[in-house]
């Protein structure tokens, strides 16, 4: 059964469904008119139509750069795409603290780190440090969070050990470097180690970084993933809400 027309979407140049796409790339050949033609044929092979090589020029003795406009025949059915955001709840710091006080009834213990060999702490600091990000305070500033920031280049082992020791409720793992899939490798290692230690279900496992999406995170077995531009309150709201839900389900009292 094909989807109703309105949910099938294609790129929009200046007319609905025109499929217009801009591409650019480098080819490892000296520039010539034949190089332009090679670019045209290549983009045609990619399945585009109306291929127009609008710029082709030498950028080095044996490299040429191209800008191409073309149309794609492909479309996606937007109604079938599910990518639930972890950011659904827009809450203020006070509300979040109140929710924790009332529904969780104890302070939530959070540990964050930039894992693997990654030393980009600015992102996780933005979430955890008092100062926060773009005027939105970090988790340290919340009354109802106890926050540990383990810093950079923390191995998954170390982080798991720490979480067990300190009875952490929510682990926040950051990855900024993505070269050669290092981010996915490290996130996976962390999740597996928590499973192996048998503590995965006892805590919330959250990841973040500029290339992280919530969808990718859930596919990796995380409770949530936060991408570029995340505000600390969005993360705090997610943790508080989930913890409140858990308590409601488990009926566990804290103190």
């Amino acid at each position, binding site marked *: 059964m094909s989807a109703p027309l309105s949910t099938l979407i294609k790129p*929009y140049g200046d007319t609905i469904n025109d499929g217009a796409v801009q591409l650019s790339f480098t080819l490892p050949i000296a520039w010539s008119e034949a190089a332009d033609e090679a670019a045209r044929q290549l983009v045609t092979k990619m399945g585009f139509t109306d291929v127009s090589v*609008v710029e082709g020029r030498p950028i080095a003795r044996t490299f040429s750069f191209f*800008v191409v406009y073309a149309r794609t025949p492909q479309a996606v059915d937007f109604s079938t795409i599910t990518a639930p955001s972890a950011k659904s709840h827009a809450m203020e710091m006070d509300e979040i603290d109140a929710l924790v006080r009332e529904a969780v009834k104890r302070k939530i213990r959070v540990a964050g780190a930039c894992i693997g060999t990654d030393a980009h702490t600015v992102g996780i600091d933005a979430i955890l440090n008092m100062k926060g990000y773009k005027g939105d305070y970090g988790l340290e500033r919340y009354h109802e969070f106890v926050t540990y920031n383990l810093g950079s280049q923390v191995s998954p082992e170390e982080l798991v050990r720490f979480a067990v020791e300190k009875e952490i409720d929510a682990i926040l793992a950051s990855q900024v470097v993505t070269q050669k899939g290092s981010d996915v490798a490290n996130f996976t290692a962390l999740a597996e180690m928590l499973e192996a230690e048998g503590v995965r279900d006892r805590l919330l496992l959250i990841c973040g970084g500029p290339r992280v999406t919530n969808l990718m995170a859930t596919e990796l077995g995380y409770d949530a993933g936060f991408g570029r531009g995340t505000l600390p309150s969005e993360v705090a709201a997610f943790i508080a809400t989930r913890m409140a839900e858990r308590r409601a389900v488990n009926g566990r009292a804290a103190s």
Partner: protein
Amino acid sequence: MHLEIDPRTVERCRALAADIVSPVSRFIAAHSTLSVERAVVRLLGIDGVDAQEVPLPNVIVDGLTPGQRARGAALAVGAALAETGLEPQALAERVGRGDVNVASFDNTPEVAARAAVRPHVERMLAHIRGVRETRSEMLARLPQTPPPLLYVIVASGNIYEDRTAAVAASESGAQVIAVIRSTGQSLLDFVPFGPTTEGFGGTYATQANFKIMREALDEVSRRLGRYVMLTNYASGLCMPEIATMAAIERLDMLLNDSMYGILFRDINMKRTFIDQHFSRMLNSYSGIIINTGEDNYLTTADAVEQAPAVLASQFINEEFAHRAGLPDEQIGLGDAFEIDPGLEDGFLYQLAQAQLARQLFPHAPLKYMPPTKHMTGDIFKGHLIDALFNLTSVATKQTIHLCGMLTEAIHTPFLGDRALSLENARYIMSTARHFGDEIEIKRGGIIDTRAKSVLAEAERLLRGVAERGLMHAIEDGIFADVKRPPDGGRGFEGVFERAAGYWNPFEEALSPEVAA
């Protein structure tokens, strides 16, 4: 930022512009054109097309006898109204069907004809004043963010796609939307009718299209809390008619240059001079800001060389505008950022030119056009050239800022191109908001010297034009390297001398004292 400019040179330039325009004004006052008369017919409330899709204003004016025509369409229509007792539109429709012949009322007394026309004149003037009032109210209630006003074009050929694009552009920050006309419309000796969905490199300017866009923009203006302006093109064979439609449908600006059609569309110069005058009187009355087309000199000829011609043309355009009653606040003189990006220190020349315009025309809402000619398929480079254009604009306090498109050399803008372009302008104009206030130009430096020499050269040019007369100067190719003979070009057949007793009730009502 401030240039030291000799005020006496500027005064001399203005005096020369007056000398140049005076004889042309006398010529204008003694002539009319088919399009002026069709505009009068439209202003009397006549619209629509006949069975052959010919606009009724054309049907009526084309049906006049040479004698009637020379005394103005108003008298002829007035006679028909008086004789038939019909409303103008009903009359026109009968004429369209061939039921009534306007040429047949030639014996009606002039007083009766005038009397029959008068209420319709009053009604239209009241309507236009109302439109103007509405604009003022909306601007007060939905204030624009301060200039440079970000202006983008839509040009899909389909008014409904244009509407989508215009609304989207407003949402991404546009403050003025221009609907680019279909190629060749300016050479049509009539205005197409109704909403249109097919155009060529642009969308037809029709009254229905104007209305569709105005409604969409009013809706988005209210939603965004800031008034989004609408503009289109008057220049061409139908300047007065388009000015009429724009007045009725609340366009806020209109491309209206005293010489563009001559130079760039090979329209007869007499036709253009007459048409621009009446259309500008209407613009003045309806509170529409005109935009002149000096930028075009720079796309067809070398931008460094043409700078004095641009300035000379600005003085002439200003003088023509004043004579049509336009206050400085409605004279959006054109300029452009068109110097070859490969020229060392080209940026300094651009600054000199833009600042010169700013200081010479301190009250004019200057219209600053983006780089176009030197844009290439390298959209990344193009985006940078646009960035320096944006910087120049904010530093020299231009008013109407046409956002350059990174895809200028490729296609009429995509929706995404417009968003990138607006983001470019917003970023540069915010991060360098007060840059112009922070710097002084060094005396005797490249910028200072350039500005002085452009002004001096403009004066020399104006003097030459004043000596030869404007028409002959154009014949000699003084502007943009283009030469046009006084009696050549399109539409010359539509120019005619006014007979004694010629009457144009709108001209009478709108005539500024300056033109007298």
